[in-house]
């Protein structure tokens, strides 16, 4: 029996993916575990491994194809001793699939490009192909050929391919990556569907900074090395506060509210293609040093686009820190299906009035965005108050 290779779901939110590269060619022998293709998901580029031994008999989805639905057949594997006659190519192949005898020629599918009003765009075949290959939006290209026909030089002069050489174009259109599409879709959904409310607290962190200084001064070199950041304290404080208020570590579904058993905290990282949120598992069980090392490693891999799905899937609570950019305070959009996201601003010296006296303290404003369906105001306020306590008296995190 031939084996059908399907588009895998590499994350729970993935409904479709881009087949960015075929590593194996038709006719190549494959062993289970061999990497046969690269798939671009909503979060990262993943390697697709073969689950069976055999020969890669047919590639049904061309390299570069986008929007390939999860679980659609992308290739067929023949097991040893089978010949091509045994191929049962799916009855209704996906749109990119070609008749078995013809190699996929993705460049041969051009349909006449049109403006949104249905008017035909006049363009040379070469320019059309170059635009497709460069992911260029033709509506933004001004044709300089006869009667405004778009020709090769126009494509070459368009900002996408010539780094902004065209003085006429007022903007550059960057086509969506899979990741960008997913960010747009999920955050629009979140902002539209989740009844957000926001609570802010000011944390005085002079003591925390002092503690951090002492700890870092004692850091060893080599394997046990650490350099604890303010954010590591934030993660630890959130983890411990969640332990006291497990109802915050929850998510809404139409049937029930799901309370998570583990305290898994997502940490927002700005990667080149967009926001990624690797997850620190069981963060409440980890000390500051371990947390710091783990977050550092995850963030690095996130920036390189090398996170494995299990490293960014799940999580019950997200922390987003823009303090290093000098942002005083901000309100973040909840990362569904979680209920809360904590937006951390910069620690800065501010005048503080206490017991009728004015003094100067280092203050950091943290804003919690909360899903009112799962977490009511009083609960969130209590959670935030405990969090503030940990931040202001970091030694209590040892208790």
């Amino acid at each position, binding site marked *: 029996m031939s084996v059908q290779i399907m588009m895998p779901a590499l994350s729970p939110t993935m409904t479709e993916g881009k087949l960015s590269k075929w590593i194996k060619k038709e006719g190549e022998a494959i062993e289970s575990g061999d990497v046969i293709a690269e798939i671009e998901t909503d979060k990262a580029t993943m390697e697709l491994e073969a689950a069976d031994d055999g020969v890669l008999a047919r590639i049904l989805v061309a390299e570069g194809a986008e929007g390939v639905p999860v679980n659609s057949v992308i290739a067929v594997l023949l097991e040893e001793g089978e010949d091509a006659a045994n191929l049962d190519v799916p009855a209704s192949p996906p749109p990119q699939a070609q008749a078995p005898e013809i190699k996929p020629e993705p460049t041969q599918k051009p349909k006449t490009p049109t403006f949104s009003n249905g008017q035909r765009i006049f363009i040379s*075949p*070469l320019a059309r*192909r170059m635009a497709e290959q460069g992911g260029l939006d033709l509506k933004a290209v001004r044709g300089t050929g006869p009667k405004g026909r778009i*020709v*090769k030089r126009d494509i070459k002069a368009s900002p996408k391919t010539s780094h902004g050489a065209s003085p006429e174009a007022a903007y550059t259109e960057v086509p969506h990556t899979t990741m960008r599409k997913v960010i747009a879709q999920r955050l629009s959904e979140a902002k539209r569907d989740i009844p957000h409310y926001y609570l802010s607290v000011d944390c005085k962190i002079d003591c925390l900074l002092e503690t951090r200084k002492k700890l870092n001064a004692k850091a060893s070199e080599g394997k046990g090395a650490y350099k604890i950041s303010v954010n590591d304290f934030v993660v630890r404080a959130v983890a411990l506060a969640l332990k006291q208020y497990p109802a915050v570590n929850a998510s809404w579904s139409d049937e029930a509210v799901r309370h998570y058993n583990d305290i898994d905290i997502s940490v927002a990282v700005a990667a080149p293609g967009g926001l990624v949120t690797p997850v620190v598992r069981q963060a409440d069980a980890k000390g500051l040093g371990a947390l710091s090392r783990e977050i550092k490693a995850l963030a690095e891999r996130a920036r390189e686009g090398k996170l494995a799905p299990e490293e960014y899937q799940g999580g019950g609570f997200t922390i987003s820190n823009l303090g290093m950019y000098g942002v005083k305070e901000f309100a973040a959009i909840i990362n569904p299906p979680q209920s809360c996201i904590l937006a951390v601003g910069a620690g800065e010296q501010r005048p503080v009035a206490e017991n009728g006296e004015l003094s100067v303290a280092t203050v950091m404003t943290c804003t919690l965005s909360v899903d009112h369906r799962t977490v009511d105001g009083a609960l969130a306020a209590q959670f935030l108050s405990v969090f503030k306590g940990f931040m202001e008296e970091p030694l209590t995190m040892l208790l």
Partner: protein
Amino acid sequence: MAQTSYDLIVIGGGPGGYVSAIRAVQLGLKTALVERALLGGVCLNWGCIPTKTLLHAAELYHSMKNADKLGLTIKGMTFDLKKMVERSRTVSSRLNKGVAHLLKKNKVTVIEGAARLAGAGGLHVENGKSQNLSLSAKHIILATGARARVLPGLEPDGALVWSYKEALVPDAMPKSLLVVGSGAIGMEFASFFNMLGCHVKIVETLDRVLPLEDDEISTFIRKSFEAQGVAIHTSATVKSLKKAKNSVTAAIESDGGPLKIKVDRVIVAAGIVGNVEDIGLRNTKVKLDGTHIAVDQWSRTDEPGVYAIGDVAGPPWLAHKASHEGIICVEKIAGLEDVHPLDSTRIPSCTYSHPQVASIGLSERKAKEQGHDVKVGRFSFSGNGKALTLDEPDGMVKTVFDANTGELLGAHMAGAVVTELVQGYAIAKTLETTETELMHTVFPHPTLSEMMQESVLDAYGRAIHL
């Protein structure tokens, strides 16, 4: 007194100059053209046209000698060189009158004489017959053309050592001939004299004949010429000529050591130099680039209002390049929109030797040098039905595509009638077709043009008749 003030004056009535003048009038410019010799220039009087007239006769003669194979019996066939030359002069003369007629019909003022720039749009014309003229124009196009390069020691003497001019009007057929230079001009003369029974030898400084063509074409043509009895020495340079009464001995240095070749006549076809002297450039900011006038993409020189087109503005030295440059230059002057600089990769190049050579765009080597991943297709005349019916099984069509975009980068052909075929690829390049459109085009059967499609198919592993 005649008009002396114009919108545009064109100096030189060759294929660059007269075409520019006609286009200028079409665009409403008051235009004059100054020519010191013959309208139509070298192309029409001493180049393209007379050589092709002679080559046609020689090629027919050559074919007729093999007529027996076709079932034709021709006895006692000879040729009359004098008549051949006369006919070539008649054709040139007729076209020369045709150009005069076209200029008159288009109301271009034609002024005979040698023109010289006189600064600030002024122009001085010396005319041996009547008094000198002073003219002025807002724009002046220099289209003075070029002439054969003279190499020291190889100066044409009109008797034993010929330039193209003497070679076009031979009074007798030499028994042996040395052609110095294997560009288009050298190869055409070599072919002409060889087909009429003269023993021809070619000396080329570079390592291959037709050095501007694709390497495979050079190799193919060399083999074909050698099979026809032409001796070819490449990487070889003529050092000196020793003239006797009716023969010349050339001393040649080559990779294979020194060489002496004794022949009746020598044709020197070692490139050309621009006609930049005696046109008053010294009084201007016009800059030279070697022996040619330096211009920008719109044919503008460094002197405001002065332009240069065609051979005098540099290679490729082709009549159709001059004409197109002229049209673009004039349209820019007239302020037309939608004018674009000439793309040199869209200028076809033809050599009317036997076999013919025609090409357009980048050679495979150049394409790779420019960083293209290429797909290359080839098709041989021997696989084409029409070629066999014509008894022309020797030839090839090679196409070079950019592997990523499918752009037709270049096409290179050798064989019968290819000079008439290459325009198909020229249109394809101008319209920016990819391999897909060339594959979808229906080529008629049986024609030589079918090979043009097969070569494209071959580049993508899809040739049918291969």
